[in-house]
């Protein structure tokens, strides 16, 4: 029996966002496309375990995220500087990974720990609820909230370095506060 075309269309409709998630996670278009392909192969081989009417994007994102994590663990043993590699691979495809003005943002995003990056992307860009994001990452909702908060705080710190002039006279105050108020 062939796959229900409605299910097939749900899978196809999810691919652009699934791929955006993959690129955002691993920072490399070619690796991301491999990851999406592997995800689709697994998903369609196990389509029976998908309950029609439930959340197709969440189901596919979970598969991709788990594949990425197991691959990431393997690679981390091989490559010490995983974060540096992430930043480097994003830079190597500037014409493919989006507009140049996001360079600074992508560099900052690359500096986040992987668990914070994935939580922020799922909630802030993919549009998943905190509950769905927690299910995708296999952790508690509170953990997702905490990771998203830490990711936002860290990004704000990283991006403020280059936009401190936007904040004018507050700069000196912020410098004093950053030093803990000691003179």
């Amino acid at each position, binding site marked *: 029996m062939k*796959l229900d075309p409605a299910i097939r269309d749900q899978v*196809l409709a999810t691919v652009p966002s699934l791929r955006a998630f993959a690129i955002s996670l691993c920072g490399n278009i070619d690796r991301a496309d491999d990851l999406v392909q592997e995800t689709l192969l697994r998903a369609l*081989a196990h389509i029976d375990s998908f309950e029609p009417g439930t959340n197709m994007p969440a189901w596919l994102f979970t598969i991709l995220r788990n594949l990425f994590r197991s691959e990431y663990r393997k690679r981390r043993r091989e490559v010490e500087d995983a974060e540096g590699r992430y930043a480097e691979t994003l830079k190597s495809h500037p014409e493919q990974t989006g507009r140049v003005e996001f360079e600074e943002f992508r560099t900052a995003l690359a500096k986040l720990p992987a668990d914070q990056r994935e939580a922020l992307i799922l909630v802030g860009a993919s549009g998943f609820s905190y509950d769905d994001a927690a299910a995708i990452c296999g952790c508690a909702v509170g953990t997702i909230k905490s990771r998203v908060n830490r990711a936002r705080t860290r990004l704000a710190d990283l991006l403020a370095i280059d936009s401190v002039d936007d904040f004018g006279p507050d700069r000196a105050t912020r410098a004093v506060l950053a030093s803990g108020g000691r003179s």
Partner: protein
Amino acid sequence: MGDRGKDDAMKHRKTNLEPVMDKPESQDPMARPATHKEARLGREVQARIGQQLRAMYNDFVNQGVPPHLADLVRRLSDQDQD
């Protein structure tokens, strides 16, 4: 074939970018109440982060479905399921 990459099912999903209040980090002994100005700056920075994150992500989404992945899905869908 229709351009399924443009399917906007994913684009109308709302995002959760409002700060979450129950953050354990606020237990930090160095923490102090934010001034009104700092809170405003924080919101502006957070709004910009949310905007840039979505803009970057949507750039990727708008690339649609690469032909080889669309072919893969159609080919596997047409095979007999086990």
